[in-house]
């Protein structure tokens, strides 16, 4: 053998897992909710999602081109962000809302802080907060299911209310199936649960955050949600609004939540508490997105406080 062999530091073998494969799994997990959204709100939901995804990918690519960096779109994280942004839009939103949202999401929230894994706010929720603050009318123009919105460029839909505003009475079955007003991806709880199951089976996320988040909301809304204590309609609270979407897909975002499992649980509990406070005492009917954004900011400190216990400091266990 004349040629020198390749050397390198150990380990010499690696898992087959990769960032793109993880993102691919998240996309698969989001598909049931997308299909449900399209079924409920018509093809416009699909179109908005497409616009959001395409513009998110395009903005990320353009940013890399402008900065003369290797493009990062192949890690598929922009696709996930685009889908999540669209899921947070009402189906009646005009097409440019998706583009403006994608711009804010990718350029301001994600790439300005260093791209994938470096952002401190959930990109999709950051963009949603920006859109709600800028165009509150459009962003809360929830439409009734089956409104079959046409045409795309001039939305003219019958507006509706999210069940959380308490104006329309709804039954649990409709809530579960998603046959209610709301954003594209948040209404069908069945579809979101299928997505959650997929993520758990594929070990993309752990149970900690979803269980802690939903559990806390259920508990607190049962205690404080009714006229007296311990009489709240907790089932209604967890099945309405964006709780499942937030708890399964946003509060489990890798970049903006604690890396420790204990920390993930604390994060979920914190999100739950803030959600219930905003829903019951705040000015907005929905608090999931703001609660996650607020906890995103708290996540470094949670992470530090829940660091695993040092090996060898457990002392003699059975000396």
């Amino acid at each position, binding site marked *: 053998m004349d040629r020198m062999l*390749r050397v390198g530091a150990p380990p*010499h073998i690696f898992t087959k897992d990769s960032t793109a494969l993880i993102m691919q799994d998240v996309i698969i997990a989001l598909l049931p909710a997308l299909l449900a959204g399209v079924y409920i709100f018509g093809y416009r939901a699909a179109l908005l999602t497409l616009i959001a995804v395409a513009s998110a990918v395009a903005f990320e690519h353009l940013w890399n081109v402008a900065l003369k960096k290797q493009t990062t779109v192949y890690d598929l994280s922009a696709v996930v962000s685009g889908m999540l942004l669209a899921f947070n839009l009402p189906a009646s939103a005009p097409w440019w809302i998706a583009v403006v949202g994608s711009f804010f999401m990718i350029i301001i929230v994600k790439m300005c802080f260093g791209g994938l894994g470096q952002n401190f706010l959930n990109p999709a929720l950051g963009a949603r907060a920006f859109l709600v603050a800028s165009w509150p009318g459009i962003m809360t123009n929830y439409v009734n299911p089956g409104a079959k919105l046409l045409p795309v460029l001039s939305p003219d839909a019958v507006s509706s209310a999210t069940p959380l505003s308490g104006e329309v009475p709804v039954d649990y079955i409709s809530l579960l199936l998603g046959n209610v007003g709301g954003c594209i991806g948040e209404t069908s709880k069945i579809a979101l649960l299928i997505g959650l199951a997929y993520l758990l089976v594929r070990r993309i996320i752990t149970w900690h955050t979803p269980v802690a988040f939903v559990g806390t909301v259920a508990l607190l809304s049962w205690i404080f949600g009714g006229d007296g204590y311990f009489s709240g309609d907790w089932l209604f609270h967890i099945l309405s609004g964006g709780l499942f979407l937030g708890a399964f897909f946003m509060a489990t975002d890798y970049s903006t939540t604690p890396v420790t499992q204990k920390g993930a649980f604390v994060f979920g509990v914190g999100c739950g508490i803030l959600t219930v406070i905003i829903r019951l005492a705040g000015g907005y009917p929905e608090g999931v997105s703001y609660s996650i954004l607020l906890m995103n900011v708290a996540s470094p400190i949670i992470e530090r406080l829940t660091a695993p216990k040092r090996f060898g400091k457990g002392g003699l266990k059975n000396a």
Partner: protein
Amino acid sequence: MLRLPFKSRTFRGGVHPYDNKEHTRYLKIEELPAPKTMIFPVSQHIGVDSQVVVGVGDSVKVGQLIAKQDGFVSANQHSSVSGVVAAIAPRLHPNGKYVNSIVIENDEKYEVFDGIKPNKPVSELSKDEIIKIVSDAGIVGMGGATFPTHVKLSPPPGKKIDYVIINGAECEPYLTSDHRVMLEDAELLLTGCKALMKALDAPECIIAVESNKKDAIRVIEESILYRKEDSIRVAKLKTKYPQGAEKQIIFAVCGREVPPGGLPADVGVIVNNVDTCAAVARAITTGMPLITRIVTVSGSAMSNKRNFKVRIGTPIKDVIEGAGGFKEEPVKVILGGPMMGIAVYSLDVPVIKGTGAVLALTDDDIGKKVSTNCTRCGKCVQVCPMRLMPTIIDRYCDRFDPEMLEKYNIFDCIECGACTFICPARKDPLQKIRVAKGKITAIKKAKKEEKR
């Protein structure tokens, strides 16, 4: 008392690389004929280099001392063949450096040195005699760390040793050398256990084996029953990497945590590798010092896979030829397991005391490396057997912040590579940790010298 949950015991964290042991686990150990030229580096262990005691032109025999231990933490070296010393000159060492080595031309007569004769049985030897035999035989930790065994057998005074753990976890993928020793030499292993227990005044000995080696567990348990050894037991461990790491195996077997910077003796335990234990027994029963070791030859690029008994000093190109050479061009040749072994760039390096395997890996074995930003998925935190947070340490390594690195216990890292193995973003936290550790140590050393 020891807790005895009779399920597979383990520690928190760890990874499950595909173990690739099926290629060699059923293959009997074969003796590999030694080639014409043998290379013995003076450094085959942790500690001070041995002092050469032969000169060029001297004729040596099998088992003859060729370099003697220099100070306490050092080890003797013996010739594994008979022949003539051809040169004493720097030769390439598996660590990638040129190290002073004794080159011996093999006369293929294998005449045994006169001084080699069996010792008394273990029951008649005293504690100090056993340690002397081990020390004279140049035995070092053969799991790869190569720490001189006689040093391990002399714990600081006042430290009582409760358990001797024989490490048969063999958690590295591909490796089956310890597995075969346990299957084929269980009797010898038990003799070694008795000797180690006697040397350390330890009342109990536990042979810890991963659950993927059930046949070995059965064979050892049968020998224990047959020989009626009440003080030796087998513990079944969960199959997981790095189950065989010293601190992790101690925790798994007896629930004790070695404190940071501490030694196993601090918690009353001494861990020895299976092959080391067999070498101790061989040194006692035959008087022959450590001149052979079991080497697994495997990897996709090898035409045949083997478990060889190799005379120490055999260049690895001869080991590879002995197994039929390469089937295809290897990308990496690794001495030891794929998780912690050393990649060598030349096949001229010899098998030394710590070389448990020669692996010829192809691109398929290694896998592609496309790195992205860290997504903070937290997998490295979940798998770290030392409960560190590699992703955070990685960030502090990037901006090199010694204070924060020490706060996140960078020096606890045992460099097992689980974090780098599991990373979906193909980052290499371990390599950055190694570099940062070196830098911090250098800074500390410089500061100390300034104070003087």
